[in-house]
């Protein structure tokens, strides 16, 4: 994890729990399925979407990044484009404390250090930056996030805003999904009961979005 980004104090318990979490066969199977799809039709970035907040996007990003890094032995970049935080939201920094091959950057931060330099001494801390001014709207941020980050990342995961709600200057998840090479939709209990579910699925039928599939997170009761 990029130590240059100022994050809240890491929750050691959360990292331990994630360690247990990624040992589950379901997680490995899921990572294998995504890897298989990536081999079939390569994509560089994967947008993780959900209809409602609290469906498990961050958890999926963290778990997927950990398993991907272990199995594919390639660095993974997670771009945190989700501005909204609830008290129950997971902190990526806390999740990825023990994951040296996983890099995390928030939208608006500067580019992460190149993974090639990760084997050397840890990079110097980079002061957090505020969100740049939107000159071309969200496209500028997306281009910056996907096209300008250096480094041969095995996969770039983008933790997005929920499809319902949001705004406040955060990046539009639909635009992120279009810009990314592929997307997955996490469906939790809240999404399945949401009145906006059908409307959201309709949005994702956009021909510019390559929706790989659904990831169920029904056991997590939020």
């Amino acid at each position, binding site marked *: 994890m990029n130590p240059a980004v100022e994050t809240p104090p890491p929750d050691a318990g959360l990292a331990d729990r994630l360690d247990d979490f990624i040992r589950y066969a379901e*997680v490995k199977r899921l990572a294998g399925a995504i890897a298989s799809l990536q081999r079939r039709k390569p994509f560089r970035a994967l947008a993780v979407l959900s209809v409602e907040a609290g469906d498990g996007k961050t958890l999926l990003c963290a*778990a997927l990044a950990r398993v991907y890094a272990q199995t594919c032995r390639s660095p993974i970049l997670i771009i945190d484009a989700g501005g909204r935080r609830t008290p129950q939201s997971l902190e990526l920094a806390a999740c990825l404390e023990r994951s040296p091959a996983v890099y995390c950057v928030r939208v608006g931060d500067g580019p992460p250090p190149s993974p090639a330099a990760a084997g050397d001494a840890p990079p110097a801390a980079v002061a957090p930056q505020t969100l740049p001014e939107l000159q071309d*709207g969200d496209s500028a941020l997306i281009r910056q996030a996907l096209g300008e980050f250096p480094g041969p990342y095995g996969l770039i995961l983008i933790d997005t805003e929920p499809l319902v709600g949001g705004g406040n200057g955060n990046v539009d998840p639909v635009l992120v999904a279009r810009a990314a090479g592929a997307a997955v939709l996490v469906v939790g209990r809240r999404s399945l009961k949401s009145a906006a579910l*059908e409307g959201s699925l309709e949005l994702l039928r956009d021909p510019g979005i390559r929706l790989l599939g*659904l*990831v169920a997170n029904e056991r997590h009761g939020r």
Partner: protein
Amino acid sequence: MSRMNPEPAPPDVFRLLEKHRRVLLAGTLLSTALAFAAGQFLPKKYKSSFVLTVHSRYFENPLIRDFLAPVHDSTEMRSQREALIRQALDAEFLDELGRRHGLTSAGGAAAPPGALRRLVRRLKPGRGDAAAARLSRERELLLRRIDVQRVNPDTFRISFVHSEPGVTFAAAQDVYLQVLRTLVASRRDILVHARDAIETRMRSLGGGSAPAPAAGAAVQRWRLSEPLEDWSTALARGAGAGWGQEQTAAEMGLYKDLLVKLNYLQVALDSDKAFQGAYIAVLEKPLYPAGPIWPKRGLFLVWGMAAGFIGAGLLCCLREYEERGTLDAATLSRRTGIPLLGSLPALPER
């Protein structure tokens, strides 16, 4: 670059209608078809009616106002009108009506009761005369076919309902004639009874108060058809028959008064006979039914469509509620065709 409504959208009614359009359409069509079939095959009812007005003059006669007080209270007149009409529908008339049109078994040999009815009778002892009970029931059912409706305080619409148009028309005509006959007869009967009473009194005055006449003496009876004789002649005759002077003077006065009233009554009777339409007006005579009053096909079709749409709509709401309540990722994947890549286990607790 637009986003969808950031707030959770209210249930999209039009989208739900589009989603369940097949169920709604099928339900509406099925219900409409059933309603159409019901309109075709349900037993039909035909109605024939007549409207008549009973004027206030029916209850008045200036000629006899002194001894037959007219009715002035409107409520009482209204009640009397309706009572007179219903009075026409007595048991005798109903039996005759039922016999003529085959609506009752009155007067005919009763069909032997079936086994079930015999069993019911055994189980319910003490029912009395079964034939009388059956007749009474038939009369009641026949009376229900006749409807008396008050259009306004002095006008009534009387209808007859049956499943065959020919029977409906003929029965309505019979009821019409019976009501008219009853109204005319009731008024005439009042006058006739008063006349008869006066006549009887006059006869008693002519012979009752006098000593018993000698055998062979002719008792003068004043007949209505005979011209009124001179009083003096009458008195003389009475005196000759043995009347006393005191009796004669008092009774003569009474007799004179009664004779005057009798003449007025006769005038009233003759006048009624000649001008019966003066106090009863028939506004509408019975007509042959043009069509059934029930079932109304157009109304049934509308009801069928509405019931089908509402019923199908409720069914769709239940299905939608069940879908939303029991939807899982696998079902969602199946419905939308989006592959289910996998599922996340529960994050271990601390």
